[in-house]
């Protein structure tokens, strides 16, 4: 029984990490209606840049700030060069453009920083917390808990930002209807700049956490793909949805691997979340928190 809880909690905590990546998607989708397939590439770029700068001699905080600046520049450039010219195109076109963008960023990251995996040390160890282990007999990783904590703070901050501030309201207006937002005087370009900057920041946090956990390597870009089932479960436009979705995906993935995996030869982590999302979609096409779309004829 304890084993079950260990796997469950481990899964939940890794799910938090997925949520972080999904958050980046949700932000951009909420504000500009674009499904940014390149989010995973951005996470990779953030992690690689940070590690690269750090290894070049900059200290932790300086590297952090510099990377954040780089992410913001990347976001603004993306908005300018890729999204603005495609403003009136159907969503599928924009989606395919972001696929192209992800390839571009991946290639660039490796050109700048090389293709070997790097280590990222955040100072938090991936070991079980002693006193919890002693008390309940469950092995919960210090690192995972810290990551969950950071993610919780981030989510809370974003929720407040979106719902309680003027800028947040402007963002939601823009997401709903660009033209109407323009009509009431919301500066579209600035708003998009802010959104991409925030998404870049989220990508940075995700990059650091994931990089510390798994090492900074090319496989990080596949995280974007893992975030997709999260988004399907949680809905594309909901911040709480991204969290809940992430938790569900993380937990179910681990549990499935441990309990169903051995019966079919293992390795089902790769497709289980997708099939789960697929089954879910059949029942509820908008996700847990998504909005139902009524097509008016």
């Amino acid at each position, binding site marked *: 029984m304890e084993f079950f809880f260990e796997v469950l909690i481990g899964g939940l905590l890794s799910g938090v990490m997925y949520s972080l990546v999904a958050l980046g998607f949700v932000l951009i989708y909420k504000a500009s209606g674009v499904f940014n397939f390149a989010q995973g590439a951005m996470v990779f770029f953030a992690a690689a840049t940070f590690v690269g700068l750090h290894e070049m001699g900059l200290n932790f905080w300086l590297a952090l700030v510099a990377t954040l600046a780089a992410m913001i520049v990347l976001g603004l450039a993306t908005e300018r060069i890729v999204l603005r*010219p495609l403003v009136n195109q159907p969503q599928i076109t924009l*989606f395919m453009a972001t696929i192209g963008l992800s390839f571009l960023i991946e290639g660039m990251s490796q050109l700048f920083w090389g293709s070997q995996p790097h280590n990222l040390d955040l100072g938090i160890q991936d070991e079980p917390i002693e006193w919890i282990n002693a008390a309940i007999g469950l092995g919960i990783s210090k690192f995972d808990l810290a990551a969950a904590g950071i993610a919780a703070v981030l989510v809370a901050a974003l929720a407040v930002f979106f719902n309680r501030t003027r800028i947040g309201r402007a963002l939601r207006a823009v997401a709903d209807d660009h033209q109407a937002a323009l009509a009431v005087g919301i500066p579209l370009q600035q708003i998009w700049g802010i959104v991409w900057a925030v998404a870049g920041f989220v990508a940075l946090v995700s990059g650091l956490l994931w990089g510390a956990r798994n090492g900074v390597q090319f496989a990080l870009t596949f995280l974007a793909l893992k975030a997709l089932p999260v988004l399907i479960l949680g809905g594309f436009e909901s911040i709480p949805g991204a969290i809940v979705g992430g938790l569900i995906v993380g937990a179910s993935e681990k549990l499935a691997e441990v309990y169903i995996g051995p019966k079919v030869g293992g390795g089902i982590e790769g497709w289980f979340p997708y099939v789960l999302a697929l089954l879910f979609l059949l029942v509820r096409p908008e996700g847990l928190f998504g909005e139902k779309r009524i097509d008016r004829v």
Partner: protein
Amino acid sequence: MLYREAGQFKATYAEDQQIFPIRQDRIAVLLMLAVAYLLVPFFANEYWLSAILTPFLIFALATLGLNLLTGYAGQLSLGTAAFMAVGAFAAYNLLLRVPGIPLLVAFVLAGVCAALVGIVFGLPSLRIKGFYLAVATLAAQFFVVWALTKFGWFSNYSSSGVITAQKMSILGYSFDSPLAKYLLVLTIVAVLALAAKNMVRSSLGRAWMAVRDMDVAAEVIGIRILHTKLMAFAISSFYCGMAGALYAFAYLGTVEPEGFNLDLSFRVLFMVIIGGVGSILGSFLGAGFIVLLPIFLDTIAHPIELGLTLPPGLMSNVELVVFGGLIIFFLVVEPHGLARLWQICKEKLRLWPFPH
């Protein structure tokens, strides 16, 4: 002026509905077939045949399949490689386990297997649209590759699922040389391309485009949405399955499930986008472009490389950057791809050399 239609009158509907109504088009196509069948075998060396033309044709077939599904029927799919894998492994198993089965029959049955898998993963498309559907096809992609690796039966219990394609022979004639393989692939692709062009301009193709453009209206007209979508998945997967079988048998020789990964699916999607969504010609143009691009990059990289020792993997990263950049470029500048550019060319040819 070369391309004027003046003087070409259509006296019957049958003439108007021909596959190539303009005489210049008919001549061009016949010319291309002549070149492909008669000239190329004489002038092309083995490298060109086996490393460029044959893969070009095979990818064109896969692109055609994906174009039918995504371009004409509007169902976004990221699982192309999975269907190719089904085709490859099905063909291998059929030839292995069914004694005396003719090669072409095995290929067609392999395509049918791929079509069946396509139908299964296309069933969600009734409820799900857009990128949600793309994610469902990702499920197909990951699951199929996993299943082919995990269940040893598919690869005859070889380690890591690698299979070696059998020799191809029809009626005793063995297709061993690059030239023979090229001609076989050329014929299969030409026939399937013709079939695709026919389907696309008849009621099935119109039904697909109707579902793509506005499915509520399509339903009201009487088009059965699920049937239309499933046909798209089935036929598209059939084409991809055939392409996969040819990929294994006429090109690579040995394949493993991992070789049909997400990367390959994206590559074919890029061929569709760059070539032209919803265009048969575009499928060929896009495939050609992407097959030739790495070779082109390599060729210009060589002069630059003199004296410099480039780190390994640099070219593949440059390739990534160039691909990504090109996708964005095409989507921004000409979202309808090379096919549209070609159409614009033809429009200009109508007048050239006159200014207006």
